[in-house]
Structure formats: C-alpha cells, structure tokens
C-alpha cells in the first residue's frame, strides 16, 4: 500500500481544483442571485434552479462513477477503484440530500407543498436511501477487502434506480416539470445555469481528488499500524 502514497501524480491538483471551484461557485452564485433577471412567472424563487439542477446533476454523476468504479473493482481488484467509489458515493449522498432540500424550498412557494409523492421525488428519495445503505455497508464491514467487494455489489445493484429517476418525469405523469432544454429557457438563464453546472462539477472534482488522497493516506496509516 505504501507505493500508493508514494505516487505523486495527484499531489498538486487539489489546490488548483479548489481554487477554480471556489472562484466559479462565487461568481456563479453572484450572477445567479443578482445579475440574471428573475423569471417572469415565478419571480426570484426561480433562482433556486441554479443550485437545484447542478446538485441533481452531481448526484447522477457521482453515482454513475460509483457504478463504473464498482465494475472496475470487481474486474481488476485494485483497491484504488474502491477508494474512488467510496468518495464518490459520499459526495453523491450529500448532493442528493441537497437536491431534495433545495427542491423542497423551491416547491413550497411555487407548487404550494414542501413534499408530495410525485414519481420524481419518490424515486430520488429512494436513491438517497439506497446510497445511505451503501455507506452503511462500508462502515459496518471491518475487513477492507470484503468491504470493497460487498460495497461494489451494492453500488452495482443500486445503480439500477438512477436511469429510472431521470426518466421518471418523461415516462410518467408527474407534478415535477420535465427537464428544461436550451429551447425552453432564455439564453441568459441558460448560461447562468451552465456556469453553475461547471462550478459544481469543479467542486466535485476537488472533493473527489481530496477524498481519494485522504483514503490513500489513511490506508497507509492503517497498514503501518497493522505492521507494528
């Protein structure tokens, strides 16, 4: 495991990513809050979209990475894939929770309710529970090799829900509006949204790289302790 710590490839990355993420997030938030005009129908509350949509995108991205890393791990049995999967799952859970809370804050003034059992909301909540289960499996399995194997399986089976969440709005009649397209949005709003998607993605990159570094370092520490 010690050769993992020795690999310097990701050493400086996280600082650059952190800087870019903070910069774009600040700019994105300022533009989203103050520069871009409010929506004609919904007024200022619509500005929550610039957070809600990127958060949802990150949740999908994170769980997709968990899935890919789980498959890679089962094929190659390289513990590094498992570390990336673990970090990605934790970030994914954070942003799924944020998506739900932001959607709730948006839904109350616009729809009139904090929560309703609409297919999109329901499937997203199930998604959150599935990946909380994933993290629970990790925390309850002591042996690292077994933990990696079992959580990989949970990550693969759980991913079956992700496409269903995304498509639930178009397949099924729901309260949640279908995803917006460039055609259905004013250009200024679209660009603000894109900027925030980039900002969130950069933040995701930074968090994932850092999570990975921490995992490698802690693994090395564990091994040293075990050697003693």
């Amino acid at each position, binding site marked *: 495991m010690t050769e993992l710590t020795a690999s310097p490839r990701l050493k400086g990355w996280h600082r650059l990513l952190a800087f870019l993420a903070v910069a774009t997030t600040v700019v994105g938030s300022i533009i989203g809050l103050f520069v871009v005009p409010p929506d004609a129908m919904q007024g200022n509350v619509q500005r929550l979209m610039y957070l809600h949509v990127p958060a949802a995108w990150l949740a999908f991205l994170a769980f997709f990475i968990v899935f890919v890393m789980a498959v890679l791990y089962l094929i190659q049995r390289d513990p590094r894939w498992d570390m990336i999967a673990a970090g990605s799952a934790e970030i994914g859970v954070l942003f799924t929770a944020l998506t739900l809370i932001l959607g709730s804050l948006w839904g109350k003034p616009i729809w009139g309710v904090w929560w309703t059992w609409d297919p999109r909301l329901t499937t997203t909540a199930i998604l959150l529970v599935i990946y909380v289960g994933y993290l629970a499996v990790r925390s309850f399995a002591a042996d690292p090799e077994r933990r990696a194997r079992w959580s990989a399986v949970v990550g693969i*089976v759980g991913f079956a829900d992700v496409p269903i969440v995304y498509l639930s709005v178009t397949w099924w009649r729901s309260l949640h509006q279908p995803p917006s397209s460039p055609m259905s949005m004013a250009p200024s709003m679209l660009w603000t949204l894109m900027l925030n998607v980039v900002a969130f993605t950069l933040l995701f990159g930074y968090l994932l790289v850092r999570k990975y570094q921490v995992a490698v370092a802690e693994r090395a520490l564990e091994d040293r302790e075990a050697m003693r």
Partner: protein
Amino acid sequence: MEVWLRTWAILWKDILIEVRTKGTFNAMAFFAALILFIFSFAIGPDFDLLRRIAAGLLWVGITFTGLLALARTYHSEELAGGLEALLLYPGEPRAIFLGKLVGNLAVLLLVEVILYPVAAVLFHMDLTGKILPVAGIAFLGTLGFSVIGTFYAALTLHLRAREVMLPLLVLPLLVPVLLGAVSATAALVDPAAAGGVAGWVRLLIAFDVLYFVVCTWTFPVLLER
C-alpha cells in the same frame, strides 16, 4: 446441468433440516396472521376503508414475515461457520444462490397460502373467480422479494448490526416490486382502483427479471475467499 443438481441438493438439505428440527414455519405463519389480526382490529369496522387498503396491509404482513424468513436464510451454514462453510460446497456458487432462493420462495408462498384466506375474511376481499390471477401476482411479487432478499441476506451475513442492515438495504430496492404487487392485487380485488392490472404485472415482471439477472450474476462475488 450440474448447476441444477447442486441447486436441488442445497434445497433438499434445507428442507430436511427444516422438517427434522420442526423449524420456524409455524411460528412465522402465526406471526403473519397476527399482523393482519392487529390491523383489522385497530382499523375497526369501516368496511370500505378495509377493502381499499386490504392489498397494502396484506403485503405489509408478507414483507415483515419475509424479512424474518430472510434473516434465517443461511442459518444452518452460520452454525457451521458462516459463508466459509458455504464455500465448502463444490461447484458453481450460483447454485447456492438458486437453492436458497427457491427455499425462501417456497416458504413464503406457503405462508401466503395461509395468509390470503385470512386476509379475505378479515378485510372482506372477494376472491371468488380471481384466485388464479391473484396467486400469479403473489408469485411474481414473492419472487422479486426472495431474489433481492436472498442476495442481501448473504451480503449482510458478516456485517455488524446486520439485523438492521438487511431491511435497510432490501426495502428501498423492493419499492417497485411491492408497488406492483400491491397495486395489481388492489386492481384485481377492487375494480375502482387506479390503472389496469396488465401494466402493474409488466412492472413486476420487468423488475423480477432485472433483479434476478443482476443478483445471479454478482452472487459469486459475495462468496469469494
């Protein structure tokens, strides 16, 4: 074909143990019926309400009883040292999964044979002339339940706090299966319920196939070393 032989061997071993040790089947069936009794007593004499929620209550009973059964899936191996003991069985590990799956499925279906008449009486469900389709839906729902359950029972076997972990992992994945089973049953029993039966059955079949293939594929990973 050796997979089928091994599947049968494991199933037969479990049946023998169950019969010889006068296992837990009676207690489980009693527990399931008890759940239905409590519900029907607590809800009171509102016949319309009872009839409308009957399918849901029935599947709550099946789910709770099923979780009890699942926790015991690998009981005999556990006494002999856990998953390591399972690994001593020669040949394809998928046979272990299939054997245990059929075992769980059989136990739950037997429980349901008792549970459905009880529910019909308590909740005033009219099953005359619909017994075959209701049984078909019960089978599809129980199959999905058993597939996911048998799989995760193996996964949680060596986890700390597994009594909590099994339902935590299983229930979210079971949402589509339970939704399909409850709604299809309700649509059959109560013609006023939403949607046709066919769509729900399709949902059930789709998730049964999906879960069965993914779980059978990945099961050997759980049994390594």
